[in-house]
């Protein structure tokens, strides 16, 4: 995101807290992690205490992601010295092999790990990642399906599968996957919104209505979500221009205008300093309101 703070100037404690936050939220900010590690934490990793090992693991994965295999190797070496028998370290090694495109060797390690600990799903997920890195999309789909036969309440896997189906241009199957996510976590507005997006993409009167319902639900869970707000506007607009029933048309039209009003309210709160173009968007929205209202 547009942050200007210079990460290399953070204090040790701040840097540590930031790494911890990213580690726990699971955000992918590999380059920043590497930067923080090299400029700040690596000065005295021992003062982290037991947290040291978790940080090393985090930095190792970030290093692999940011094409810093040398750094990852250092982390793996220290981790291996501390935990020579650990499967978790072995997994890091396999990930390093992946990063250097030794896919076959990585797969062998993952296979062994799965055999040793069949209940740990992270190894199985890595196997799918290997297939994806190789660009074998159909094999990856098959592998995730296999995985989901056992761990069928894993929204992360369903989301990935829906992404893959979208790449295969199979929206209907992607919808099915997202519906699973909704079943598993019915309070996550992101899944509802995305389901709305998918239904909208599918098109057709019935699907657009479903999309509108899902957007409304997403907005109810997360009232500040701009995407659902726009989604409501789009789907209502679509309904208003296609439906034959006059009352439906009127209802959708007013709903669309309401959505625009909400959006306008939101944009008016933005200072032009951070987003100099918000006025332009406001003008666009006002213009849209006129066209939608006249339908």
């Amino acid at each position, binding site marked *: 995101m547009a942050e200007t703070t210079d990460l290399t100037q953070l204090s040790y404690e701040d840097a540590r807290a930031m790494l911890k936050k990213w580690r726990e939220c699971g955000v992918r900010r590999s380059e920043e992690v590497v930067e923080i590690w090299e400029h700040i934490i690596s000065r005295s990793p021992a003062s982290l205490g037991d947290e040291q090992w978790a940080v090393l693991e985090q930095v190792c994965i970030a290093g692999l992601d940011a094409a810093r295999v040398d750094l990852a190797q250092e982390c793996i070496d220290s981790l291996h010295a501390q935990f020579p028998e650990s499967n978790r370290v072995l997994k890091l090694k396999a990930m390093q092999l992946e990063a250097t495109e030794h896919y076959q060797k990585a797969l062998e390690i993952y296979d062994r790990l799965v055999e040793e600990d069949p209940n740990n799903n992270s190894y199985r997920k890595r196997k799918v990642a290997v297939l994806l890195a190789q660009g074998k999309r159909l094999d990856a789909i098959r592998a995730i399906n296999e995985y989901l036969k056992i761990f069928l309440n894993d929204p992360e896997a369903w989301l990935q599968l829906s*992404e893959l189906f979208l790449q295969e241009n199979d929206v209907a199957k992607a919808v099915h996957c997202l519906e699973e996510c909704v079943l598993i976590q019915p309070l996550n507005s992101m899944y509802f919104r995305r389901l709305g997006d998918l239904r909208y993409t599918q098109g057709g009167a019935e699907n657009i209505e479903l999309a509108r319902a899902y957007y409304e639900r997403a907005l109810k869970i997360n009232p500040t979500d701009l*995407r659902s707000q*726009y989604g409501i506007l789009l789907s209502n607009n679509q309904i208003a221009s296609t439906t034959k029933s006059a009352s439906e048309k009127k209802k959708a039209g007013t709903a669309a205008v309401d959505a625009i009003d909400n959006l306008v309210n939101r944009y008016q709160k933005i200072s032009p300093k951070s*987003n*100099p173009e918000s006025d332009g968007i406001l003008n666009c929205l006002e213009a849209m309101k006129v066209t939608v209202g006249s339908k």
Partner: protein
Amino acid sequence: MKYQVETQALPYSTIILHCLKYPSKGVFGLLIGNKKGDKVTVTGCVPLSHESTPLAPPLELATALVHGKFGVSLVGVYFSNSNPSDASLNMYATRLADRITSVTSSPAILVQVMNERLVSDCDQDRLVAYEKDGDSWKETKTIFQGSNFLRGLQAVIQKKLYRELADFENHLDNPEFDFYNTNLSNKLVQVAEFRT
């Protein structure tokens, strides 16, 4: 071959920065420019999304907003694939280009970032342009300005300015982000000393 595509330094850099901000993902964006005869000059770009499968609603919105602002200057689409070795055309990009063609009623161009050429010692053009020929997309000529401005771009990358870039999806997550990147463009011109 109908068109020649020339991308000016500023949009060129912005596109590369967009790719750099999301190294693990594919990116999409819109191209702003003008058409004179058979030459298309790209003078600006609007980063849209960092998903390899952007769905219809955000794209529709962004096209509407950008078209509202720039009108017929909306000339095309740029994209990059998420897998570095994948040089195929992305279906979602071609679909978006078709959409732009119908919105502006003038044939849109499609520009692909060749991921494998995104290394500092490559002297080929990192962008490849396509135009629609009947039902299929055919590669067309790009005018590569050579390595002159690439040096400026290097300075920009070293300053990590790509972290300040925002695309339309960032904007939807938080409307404080400006997906036209006005401030960033000013900085780019300063740092890299682009002639506008």
